């Protein structure tokens, strides 16, 4: 680990200004960042601890919920409002990592966690995300925890968060404070960028941009589900996951939001699938078409080929259950 400065910001302004320094990074729970620093995948010269800014609050705003960026995943999952009205979020959180990690991991850190591509963590291999222009070791190498949707020739890394998948299905927005002191609110969908030929740029955040909260609008569907398929019963990233938020009316799908984990280079959502399903009577043939639509542009490698069939199957099963 390279020596670094550590400071505990007194307020958000100081934090944002300090984080504008070259190589500076915010640290929240540290469950991802510290691992990356030990391996020297990342070597920030300064860490700005945002754990004492009072960003760990959760409050109701009308029917909506505002979730502080440093609230832990464990606390968020256990919140009685979340469990009652946004159960898909609670389930997604509890399906992630382990109890110990969730006690440290935060809302903001979870959104910005780095991929689990093993080559990204191995500084002896080429990786465009870690070292732009060096090549991608996963393509032509070993793949499993990799994406099949939204990939590029330069990177097939997965966005591995479970929480972000649920948040995408819930139309969450992210509150960002910039170094200049201004605030902005962006759709979670717009936070992330596809890898393209710049896989090292993952979000639209600029240096010094601090996520202060996640804004959760009232859920539009009372039927919610999170299904995660993984290599062991707990403590593993998703091979495939599906978050579904559905409202039914007169036997028809009135509203539906579907987001996917384990498949995309970012928490995946496909408006075409939702358009196809909305207003329809649930039936097998329809679900088949939805599944085909999801995978129409899939670009699997040999190690991830199974995700096409698995993803379709899980989507169909979730749709069957959630619309029944």
């Amino acid at each position, binding site marked *: 680990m390279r020596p670094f400065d550590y400071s505990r910001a007194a307020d958000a302004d100081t934090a944002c200004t300090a984080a504008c320094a070259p190589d500076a990074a915010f640290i929240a729970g540290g469950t991802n960042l510290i691992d990356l620093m030990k*391996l020297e995948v990342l070597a920030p010269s300064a860490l700005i601890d945002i754990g004492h800014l009072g960003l760990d609050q959760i409050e109701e705003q009308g029917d909506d919920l505002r979730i502080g960026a440093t609230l832990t995943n464990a606390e968020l999952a256990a919140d009685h409002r979340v469990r009652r009205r946004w159960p898909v979020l609670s389930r997604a959180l509890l399906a992630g990592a382990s109890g110990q990690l969730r006690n440290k991991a935060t809302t903001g850190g979870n959104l910005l966690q780095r991929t689990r591509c093993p080559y990204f963590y191995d500084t002896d*291999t080429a990786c465009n995300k870690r070292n732009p222009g060096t090549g991608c070791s996963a393509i032509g*190498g070993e793949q499993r925890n990799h994406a099949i949707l939204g990939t590029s020739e330069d990177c097939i890394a997965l966005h591995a968060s479970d929480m972000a998948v649920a948040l995408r299905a819930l139309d969450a927005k992210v509150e960002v404070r910039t170094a200049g002191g201004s605030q902005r609110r962006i759709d979670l969908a717009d936070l992330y960028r596809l890898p393209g030929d710049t896989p090292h740029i993952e979000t639209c955040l600029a240096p010094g941009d601090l996520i202060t909260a996640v804004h959760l609008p009232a859920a539009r569907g009372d039927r919610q589900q999170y299904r995660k398929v993984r290599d*062991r*019963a*707990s403590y593993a990233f998703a091979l495939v996951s599906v978050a579904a938020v559905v409202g039914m009316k007169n036997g028809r799908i009135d509203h539906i939001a579907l987001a996917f984990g384990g498949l995309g280079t970012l928490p995946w959502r496909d408006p075409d699938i939702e358009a196809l399903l909305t207003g329809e009577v649930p039936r097998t043939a329809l679900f088949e078409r939805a599944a085909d639509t999801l995978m129409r542009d899939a670009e699997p490698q040999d190690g991830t080929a199974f995700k096409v069939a*698995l993803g379709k199957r899980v989507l169909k099963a979730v749709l069957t259950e959630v619309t029944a």
Partner: protein
Amino acid sequence: MSVEMKIDGPEQAQGDQTGAQAVLGYAADRPEGGLKVTGAAPYAAEPCPANMAHGFLVRAPGLGKVRLTNLEVVQGMAGVLTVLRDDRMIRNAAQGTSEGAPVQGVDQAEYVGQPIALVVAESFEQARHAALALRVDTAGDDLVVNPQDAVAADDDIDETAQGDLESAFASSAHRIDQTYTTPSLISAAMEPHAALAEWDGDKLVLRASLQMLKYSRTEIADCVGIAPEDVRVLAPYVGGGFGSKLGICAEAVAAALAARQLGRPVRVVQHRRQVFEVNTRRSETTQRIRLCADMNGQLTGIGHQALVSNLPGEDFAEPVLQATHFAYAAPNRLLRREVLRLHRPAAGSVRAPGEAVGVTAFEIAMDELACAAGIDPVALRLRNIPRNDPESGLPFSSHRLAECLTDGSRRFGWSKRPTAPRQQREGEWWIGTGMAAAFRVNSMMEAEARVVLSAQGVRVETDMTDIGTASYAILGQIAAERLGHPLSRTEVILGDTDLPPSSGSGGSFGAASTGTAVWLACEELRRMLAGRMGCDAADLTLKDGYALCDNRRRAIADLLDGASVTGHGRVQPGEAGDKVRQATTGAHFAEVAVSDMTGEVRVRRLAGTYAAGRILNPRTARSQCHGGMTWGIGMALTEALIHDRRDGHVVNRDFEAFHLPVNADVPDLDVAFVEDRDDWLGPLRAKGLGELSICGAAAAVINAVHHACGVRVRDLPATPDRVLEGLV
């Protein structure tokens, strides 16, 4: 004086001759347990002598000739004391009982990840930072790393044949011919490999995490170039070994060399990612199994051909066929093993080398035969239990497989099982059951121990290790029992080569071998006490610190008259191995649920019934079995080292990516033991137990998957994608 014994024949004394103290065979607590769970037991890397420096191993990022391109820069980095590149550093861990140095050298990387330098600095962080800053170039040699690209050389092929398998196969009523694969596996014990080396003049004191000290002492002496007498190895507490600490490991040799060069104590701890590549892995295997049987399910032929791998220069070859030689009777047999030379990390012993993978594949094949022949899997095995060793004709010293199978199936409720697969469904889950037999060779190793008896009580001394296996508990129980002392007045000192050389821990032989040495040392003391009592040792009863015979009772302390007395015991394997076939056996039963939607498998129940000689401590014995069965679940469902297809390096070098089963994967495990009194084991009559419970456990799970959903997985582990392939 010393009581010595060679196991040449059956034990003459009748019964268990336990003693009057009634502590042997009881579920005693582990005396060091409290120290371990409170952090008070010092593991190898915990003592911090003054002036200690820290070393961090540097790995080769590629294959071939190694060149360092910024050595001067790194040598000048903050805190760096030296960048050690010494031809005596080792390529990989020594194999168990090798007693000499393994392949040495740092100029040529023969596998990716090979340690090629040690950076030593004032602090651990400085050493690691400098090690990561060191730029290592390799020539990028195009060496063979994949099994499919390799062919075994003639002297890497072993074959034994009896009868004529081909014609038996062709004319049989029932037959199967299938190929199974198991991936590279690793133990990755909780305590990473670690060493602290200090020199006192020309003498080396090494604190390390090792299993077999007397061998490792000779190995490190040979590596460094000194006499074994000049080395003292200390390993009082070891946080798991599973074979990966049988031989001297890279960090220990590097630490010793650096400490000598710098004239300071040097500590080197393997990073978790190094644990996954610089010790020894379990070889991947490809196993073609042919079985044929007559109308009644009597086996007429067994073919078992295995491909395994290792680095050039390693003489260990995964003994996949070890149990196939004796498990089942069949007149026509063909057993063949080929070793491929691959430039992957070295292969070596991993808990139950051979049987863990060999029995697993074989017992899946037996299930396939049972299905093909329409015979109940338990009945098929019962029908084929050999009377004598099928190849040598030697009798078995004891054989309790039939009891394990019948008792085990009763405990599990096997008879309630529907015969055909795909019969039980709960929601999206298919439910099924499966079983497999367990086999493991049993061996005894030379071992010595010393027991000191004084007014304070009993003290056992040997260089034996406790690698989480309960050596402290059971050796104390044996001595307390034989010398009539409560456990509270019995002390066990282990893990120091200044003490009498034991068997060490490995191959499940530790408890039986070193335990027998302790027994014999006690025998000497018993004879002496009998002499002082004026009676025959056989008539002497020792209990609660008193000696009793002929209606006379005296405090043992009085008999000692203030002095302490020492007994010495030594056991050696004798001719028993030429006269009988000795093994442990068992039966596994599993119930699983398989998701029809995702292919995920959940083990709902796993039960094991084992015959492993006298059970010295049922609590610690059961705990060993829990561990082994959990390994079985991992082998069946989750574990695999992934090698990069281009250069063979291990891709998943941490616990996030190498999937050990977690609590949610492991149901309540049911363990039972059947009576097994094997006379060919010396007076202790204990057999090895630490490994048996892995052997075949994975097969029970895989067979249950088939029974549940009809999918036969032949490439382990049965991850959701592999199960799903059969479901769609």
